[in-house]
């Protein structure tokens, strides 16, 4: 029997959050954490969490498993369970709506700030804007982000200033458009980032890199943005 300790909070009935201790029969199989949650939900339908694709694509089941953020659907028990114990908490730093469901508004507000869409003020060509294979390659490691928020909610700078620091996920997307050869708004994008908070709250702790379930590297992208700001100003 696997010992599971799970964060519970229902604002309608609970005065404050508490950890619920439950046992789950995994049948000796190396299940994914999401499978364990489904088993638990079978026993107690009031348990709330988000999930959709169950294969690491939609990014909806980001949570904190034994102290580390990740996607429950692609996290095998063998990789996270220590001493037969699994501790599940919501993503840190965001307001909890219920149980493992957090309010992502602040995360999305930062994402919106970087204007995550292609901007080009030149006349549109008849068919499509072309890009050389080399230029396209620059977007690898950037476009794959599924906005699960595992990175930003593991970043201390984002915990303290979620309203002013864009955070690793937003900055990765910011660089995704700064690096795009078809985007012509580079100057405006950079001008909006040159304050003491948006980019420069990153202290390079690399918590974000450590947790990204897609193996992306926001710290590196942030470094590129910093270099672009530096060459723009010198």
């Amino acid at each position: 029997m696997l010992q599971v300790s799970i964060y519970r909070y229902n604002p309608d009935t609970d005065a404050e959050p508490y950890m619920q201790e439950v046992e789950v029969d995994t049948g000796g199989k190396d299940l994914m954490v999401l499978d364990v949650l489904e088993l638990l939900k079978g026993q107690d339908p009031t348990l709330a969490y988000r999930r959709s694709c169950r294969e690491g694509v939609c990014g909806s089941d980001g949570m904190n498993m034994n102290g580390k953020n990740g996607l429950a659907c692609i996290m095998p028990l063998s990789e996270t369970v220590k001493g037969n114990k699994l501790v599940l908490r919501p993503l840190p730093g965001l307001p909890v709506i219920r149980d493992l469901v957090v309010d992502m508004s602040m995360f999305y507000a930062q994402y919106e700030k970087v204007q995550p869409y292609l901007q080009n003020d030149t006349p549109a060509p008849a068919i499509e804007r072309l890009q050389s294979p080399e230029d396209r390659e620059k977007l690898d490691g950037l476009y794959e982000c599924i906005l699960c928020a595992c990175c930003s909610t593991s970043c201390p700078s984002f915990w303290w200033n979620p309203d002013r620091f864009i955070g690793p996920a937003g900055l990765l997307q910011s660089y995704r458009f700064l690096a795009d050869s078809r985007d012509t708004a580079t100057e405006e994008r950079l001008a909006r980032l040159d304050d003491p908070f948006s980019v420069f709250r990153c202290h390079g702790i690399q918590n974000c890199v450590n947790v990204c379930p897609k193996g992306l590297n926001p710290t590196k992208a942030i470094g590129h943005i910093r270099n672009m700001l530096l060459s723009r100003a010198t």
Partner: protein
Amino acid sequence: MVTAVTSMGRSGLYDWLMQRVTAVVLLAYTLCLGAFFVFNSDVTYLQWQELMSRTPMKIFSLLALISLGIHAWVGLWSVFTDYLTERLMGTKGNVMRLILQVLCGLVMFVYLIWGIQILWG
């Protein structure tokens, strides 16, 4: 764009660059003094005084002192704006942060003038 009147240069890039440049100056100064102590393990007051009274050394010391001030300002400003904020503690956060930041500036000013007095006095 998030602006802040209490940061060093109001631009994130400027603060960041200042932090790096002053760090290099402080490192160089520490290494120089470290080397001096390694080669003069039984340093006497006279040797020390002779070193510190040379003009290049005076300039270097002053530069290090100014760097320390800037470095501390930017660093502490970052710490204060992490933990003492309106979001975390309401208006009290802003008041406390401002008081601490002014205090910090005052201490640095005193050290600077005092340092100049020691070096050139």
